[in-house]
């Protein structure tokens, strides 16, 4: 979609759109939306750089996805189709609440189908099905600073980013390998974006990290509590930190399959039966699992 076309639709929505409970279309006032859009543009222009912004009060608590919610609200239009997932699941509490909220303030269509959605807001997963240039993925971020693990001071981490002084992050990984034989970070695996900034990809599992590399989709990251927005524009190189002799690897699900749809190529959640202690696996991406299940059963 062209930018001017998008702006036209946006202004239409604002003048004629339904008002829920006295709030304007998209809940936030124009000033707030503009500021967030400006921050998004800056974030897209400097891939991986954390842009500070004035995080607004939302009707959900900070730390429950307000960063993602604000990004989505700042760009949603009446003809958008929205999908919201929480750890891959369309039906969990966080996802359902956010969906209800969006529906009440913007009246957009809701879907669980990754391919159908125009905007997907997600907590800690990237959908299994590859997304396209026409879609936007919004990720909720609890801790935007990838270097926080090694440096508690914000002033200092900003200096480190500015000077690309990342030896301490690498040292952290070195120590991990020396002590445990491999890098023990299971989620929030740090990545280098566009060969420059080290970035926190939000707490997605390692499984999803390769999907960031040269992705066709615009990826926007919002941290509401920490007041930061950052982005990976489409077709950007994203590399997990790795050593020449200790390569990055994803979770290994060899010999396991989804007990519901039979998938062997998805990220699986392990479920333990409380009664008999038996273990089974299910797709973490429920939308994709449903789709496969329906195909087999009809």
């Amino acid at each position, binding site marked *: 979609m062209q930018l001017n076309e998008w702006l036209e639709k946006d202004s239409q929505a604002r003048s004629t759109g339904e008002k829920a409970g006295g709030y304007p279309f998209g809940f936030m006032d124009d000033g707030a939306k503009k500021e967030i859009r400006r921050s998004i543009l800056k974030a897209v222009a400097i891939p991986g750089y954390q842009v500070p912004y004035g995080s607004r009060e939302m009707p959900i608590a900070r730390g429950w996805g307000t960063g993602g919610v604000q990004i989505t609200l700042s760009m949603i239009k009446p003809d958008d189709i929205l999908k919201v997932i929480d750890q891959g699941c369309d039906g969990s509490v966080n996802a359902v609440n956010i969906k209800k909220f969006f529906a009440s303030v913007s009246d957009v269509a809701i879907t669980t189908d990754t391919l159908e959605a125009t905007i997907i807001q997600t907590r800690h997963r990237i959908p299994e099905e590859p997304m396209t240039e026409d879609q936007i993925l919004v990720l909720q971020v609890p801790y935007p600073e990838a270097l926080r693990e090694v440096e508690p001071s914000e002033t200092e981490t900003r*200096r480190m980013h*500015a*000077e*690309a*002084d990342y*030896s*301490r992050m*690498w*040292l952290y990984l*070195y*120590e991990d*390998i*020396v*002590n445990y034989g491999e890098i023990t970070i299971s989620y929030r695996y740090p990545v280098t974006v566009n060969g420059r900034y080290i970035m926190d990809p939000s707490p997605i599992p390692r499984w999803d990290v390769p999907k960031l590399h040269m992705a066709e989709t615009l990826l926007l990251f919002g941290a509401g509590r920490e007041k930061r927005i950052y982005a990976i524009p489409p077709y950007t190189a994203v590399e997990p930190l790795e*050593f*020449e*002799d*200790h390569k990055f690897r994803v979770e290994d699900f060899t010999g396991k399959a989804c007990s519901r749809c039979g998938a062997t190529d998805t990220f699986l959640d392990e479920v333990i039966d409380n009664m008999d202690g038996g273990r089974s696996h299910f797709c973490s991406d429920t939308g994709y699992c449903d789709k496969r299940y329906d195909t087999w059963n009809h």
Partner: protein
Amino acid sequence: MEPLIRIRGLSKQFGQGCERCLDATGPEHDTNLCRYCGSVMACNDVSFDLYRNEALGIVGESGSGKSTLVRLLHFEWEASGGTVELHRSAGLDNLTDLFEANSDYSRNLLGLTHFQKRQIRNALMGIVYQNPHLGLRMQVSSGGNIAERLLGAGWRNIARMRERSAELLEKTEIPVARMDEPPCNFSGGMQQRVQIAKALSNKPLILFLDEVTTGLDLSVQARVLDLIRNLRNEFKLSMLVVSHDLGVINLLCQRTMVMKAGRVVEAGLTDQILQDPQHRYTQLLVASQL
């Protein structure tokens, strides 16, 4: 032979400063504190050359500006004035705009960005502090401490980094079997030697030694000094040795500068200074040495 690094008029002032600061401080006043405005002239108009494979000593009482000088040259503190120029032969081919086409010396290093300064520091300099806590991460393994500098220089191969760390620890007489132990498990002398290994990891041209043997017992002192002397010959290092101990200076350095209240009061060959001190303060210093 041309000096590797040329330092001219290097100064560091803490506080606002006033017109009378320069007249109110210095060795003749026996203070570096300006009595009019309360500024401290920690280092004032220090000029010298450092040649390749040379050890230059800096002696002086505490508060005379020795360590300040080292911190300025190591880019840890911002200098208030002066120039530091590097000879072309130092190599630094990746920093292209550092050298003018027709000049043998670089632009003033003090005017570079933090990023460039850090690149130069990583490529050329090593430092050993009096207190190992300043130079080492006490909770990180000794091998990791050494690897940190290599990682900063772009090394990305664990096996090769460990090889290099082991090699350096062997040179500094730390048992390689204890490579993965953090320095907080080590004795003071061992920590100091790990620090030296870390400082040497990037094969520096210039090594700063800031009171390295102060606080170590005499037998350990002798071993550390011996080690430094051997390493200097082996790596062809230029060293700046800061100490208030004339014995250390005598052992390591060919040339010596004497500092007092932020200024250099005497400079020359070490033998000359020890045998025939000219300045009143140097005479006192030599006379106090047992």
